């Protein structure tokens, strides 16, 4: 092939240019530490690394949220734990308070204890987080959730039920606390379906106190369909219902029958015989329309009555108020009446305790889930990091090798140019 003189120079200079630009490329890579200097070096990897970076930053955010939530849940868990202890102590002390032999002063000192415990629980219920927000007031974290209403003389809940949820994963939100309503003020009464009590223990009603020794030990709905049908009537039935013991013949020594009345005194179930003989522990089962069964211990006297109605929710502080009030009941019937009150509210405290334990279990499972999420996310974050690094970071060993080889080719090109440029026939003639 014929070669022109210019071609010589152009080709060798072109080669040297090529070698230099390749050398520059690897130098850029080495000085930046990145394999991809501009996205067109490897568009797929560049796009993917952007997406992975975003995913990694999102994961780091989830981890931050998880940490935050964990701190808050641990705080909540410890307060709920304290509340559990207080309610447990209160209940244990109630067993002691049920002792019929207690003197008035004994009862007074127990009442003082109870009052202290109530204050302690109130303090827990009004706990604040480190930034001053109330923990148990739902979304109204700027409002003290539990305070005694002066006119009703009851502790009332001022928060709401909306608990802040934190996002800890793209599709997972976990509540950061519990509402005070759930923990303290919306505790089911009785067994959650029906509640029964000796009337004066319910607020706002007046009745002469029972005089017998009958203690209501258990109340349950045995015919749920009948009970629901009766209580769901429109207009609503006049509740509470009342079981009244009486004698079929006035001269009998003991009561032998019971009647179920509504709140206005209308008969719901006409007189039914009590079991005979009437033992110390007996049970009555009311048929339609109510379908409720009650178990008693001790002997009711004529006109002794017990109220019952569908369970609602009650406030644990109100339960404590009632127990403390009951301690002041004196007189001959005092022990039975106190026992009846304690029986009802023992059940109430059980429910409150169940609720607190349920909350602790729930907080525990949330914390466990957070642990697992955190472990997974930390792993994922490292994976993302590794992947991005694999995509865009430079392999220095390989790059150093390439640098050496490119340097060598440049040198070769330069030297061959120097040699070839000296070749000319003109130098020989």
């Amino acid at each position, binding site marked *: 092939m014929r070669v*022109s003189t210019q071609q010589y120079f152009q080709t060798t200079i072109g080669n040297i240019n090529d070698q230099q630009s390749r050398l520059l490329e690897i130098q850029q890579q080495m000085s930046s530490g990145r394999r991809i200097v501009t996205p*067109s070096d490897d568009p797929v990897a560049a796009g993917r690394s952007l997406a992975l970076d975003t995913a990694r930053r999102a994961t780091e955010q989830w981890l931050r*949220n998880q940490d935050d939530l964990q701190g808050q849940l641990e705080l909540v868990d410890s307060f709920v734990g304290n509340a559990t202890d207080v309610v447990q102590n209160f209940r244990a002390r109630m067993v002691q308070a049920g002792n019929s032999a207690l003197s008035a002063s004994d009862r007074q000192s127990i009442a003082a204890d109870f009052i202290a415990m109530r204050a302690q629980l109130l303090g827990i219920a009004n706990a604040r987080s480190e930034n001053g927000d109330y923990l148990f007031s739902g979304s109204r974290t700027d409002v003290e959730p539990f305070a005694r209403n002066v006119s009703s003389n009851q502790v009332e809940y001022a928060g709401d039920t909306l608990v802040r949820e934190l996002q800890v994963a793209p599709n997972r939100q976990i509540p950061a606390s519990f509402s005070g309503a759930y923990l303290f003020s919306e505790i089911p009464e009785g067994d959650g379906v029906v509640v029964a009590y000796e009337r004066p223990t319910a607020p706002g009603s007046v009745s002469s106190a029972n005089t017998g020794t009958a203690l209501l030990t258990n109340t349950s709905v045995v015919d749920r369909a009948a009970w629901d049908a009766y209580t769901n009537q429109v207009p609503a039935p006049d509740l509470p219902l009342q079981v009244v013991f009486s004698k079929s013949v006035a001269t009998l020594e003991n009561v032998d029958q019971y009647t179920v009345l509504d709140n206005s005194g209308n008969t719901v179930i006409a007189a039914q015989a009590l079991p005979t003989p009437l033992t110390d522990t007996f049970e009555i089962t009311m048929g339609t329309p109510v379908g409720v069964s009650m178990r008693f211990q001790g002997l009711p006297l004529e006109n002794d009555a017990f109220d019952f109605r569908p369970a609602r929710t009650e406030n644990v502080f109100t339960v404590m108020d009632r127990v403390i009030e009951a301690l002041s009941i004196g007189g001959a019937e005092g022990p039975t009446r106190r026992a009846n009150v304690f029986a009802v509210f023992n059940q109430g405290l059980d429910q409150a305790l169940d609720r607190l334990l349920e909350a602790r279990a729930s907080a525990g499972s949330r914390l466990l889930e957070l642990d697992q999420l955190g472990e997974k996310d930390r792993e994922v974050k490292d994976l993302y990091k590794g992947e991005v690094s694999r995509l865009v970071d430079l392999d220095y060993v390989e790059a150093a090798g390439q640098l050496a080889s490119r340097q060598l080719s440049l040198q070769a090109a330069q030297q061959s140019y120097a040699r070839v440029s000296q070749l000319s*026939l003109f130098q020989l003639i």
Partner: protein
Amino acid sequence: MASDLLGVSLTGLRVAQSNLLVVSNNVANVNTPGYSRQVAVQTTNQPSFSGAGYFGQGANIQTVERVYNQFLGEQALQAASFADGFEKYDGLVGSLLNRLGSAQSGINSALDSYYAAMQDFAVRPSEVGPRQALLGAAQTLSARFRSFDEQLTQIRTGLNQEIEGTARVINQNIQSIAELNNRIVLATASAQGRPPNDLLDQRDQLIRSLAEKIEIAVVPQDDGALNIFMSNGQSLIVGEQFFQLAFQPTPDDPRGFRLQLTTSAGSPVSVVAEAQLRAGELGALLDFARVPTQFNAAGQPTDLQGGGELFRAQSDIGRLSLAIAARYNDLQQTGIDLDGQYGDPLFSIGQPRIFANPANAGTGAPSVALASPPSSIRDLQPVDYELRLNGADWQIRALPEQPSGPASWQTLGPTGPFTFSGLSIDVTGITGAATGDRFLLAQSLGAAASMQVLISDPRGLAASQGLAVERVSTGLGVENVEVDLDVLAGTLPSPVSIEFQALPGSPVTYQWRENGGAWQSLTLTQPTTSLSSVATPGLWSLELRGIPKTGDSIQLDRAGPSDNRNAVAMGKLAVGQLIDGFTLTDKYSSLISGLGTRGAEIRVSKEARAETLRLIDNEIQSFSGVNLDEEAAKLIKFQQAYGAAGRVLSTSSQLFQDFLAAIS
């Protein structure tokens, strides 16, 4: 005989001298760009007849030729067009990528910080610190969008200047070629058809540099002139006439200029058909600057996404800003801020730009604005629209983002003003419009340019959804009530009391009422039952779990400062498919990787085309270039020929002397 000997030797001397002249010219031009080596064409003289036959009368130089291959020359032109075109395109895409692509300065890093701030805000909705940080991140984000738009606008301005400059260089080239054409025709004619080699080389060199700027076709004429056409068939030089490219600024066009072909005197001939100008630097510049608002012959605006890389980048950035502003404003305006008020819009964006089809019968353009900025921004969609008159009615449709094709036309009505997807469209400024008149409403252009954060008070961020369940009374039938508030603008939610009753029967039927109003029947569904406000439809709706009992009730009231439901919903937008079925960050990543892929493609083409050109240039050089060694050899050869001819001359002189001596 002897006098003949003298004459013949003289021709030898003359021929050798001429050859030496040609050699020395070659040596002198060894580095002249575009120079083709020349050779003297040497032939024998007419022989003279004598009785003994024909005697040669020496040699002469018939002409001086350049060693030139027409075929290679033409190949080189095309190769140069493509090589330079791709080279230019590669540089343009590279500079665009450099501005958009970096992980630190890109949109994604600002978006990521914004998302992170949003999460912190959702975690601590009642504190001012995270709110302030979120506002800061939003400001950074909108500033990033503004600066991107500005940079892209700068690229376009620079691009247009470059196009204007390139057109000027092309014009000068055309002029010079036309001039050379004339000189070559004259020179060829006056030399009885012998080629004016150096003029030809000069012209070829100019044509080569013209081909680097714009793809051309060259048609040789009999008289030595060349006619030159652009690859789209429009002529640049025909005979003695030549044409010029006129760069005319057009402010009403998103691209900002029009290229027109004019006569040498400057009177317009036609608009340059750019679609077929695919190669050369100008082709690359025009392709990169391409915007799709050139309405085609059928009167359809092409898909807005059909523009060049620059336009697509600007449009995508604009649409991203639209999607952000619309979606976050939407939540912000339906949420409740720390002061218990509906949130104000968070972002404002720029007004859409309107472009009329040049073929429209009517004059004027619709005035299109954000319906009542900035509160209407929440209704915007991240698309551009096409508006047309069909009979008496104006119709509108979204332009396609995906190959799925455009949306169907929606009729707005005959007069207006119309409100459509957050835009208010006033067509009263158009006169004489006829069916088929079209306009492009490009929201994506201009949106990012003035993206701003409107909220300065951190308390104004709406973290809350307004209503919360305050109390569920009885709480034994109804459990886990979740309230999801959807609000009517301007109506702040007030406490709501919801009561239930269960009517005995078989089956039991249920009723509910709101704030002591009329009882409504309630059909329970599994797993949840939906309830929504009857008194103020749309004010609230909630999901109910469980079976209500008579006397059960739910109290709804204003949520407190720790209600973060709206903030969580805003946080979730980070993973929402807000634009073309992508999340915002994915959309941006796909913009970058799309550009990167295009860049890589172009780089491959560029290298291939450059290699092709190098090979052809090599062949040309190999064929036409001067080789100094060869010239040195020729020098010796002709020197010797000259010496030999001189020797013959001196021999002839010696013979004459001998003859004189013999006769004296």
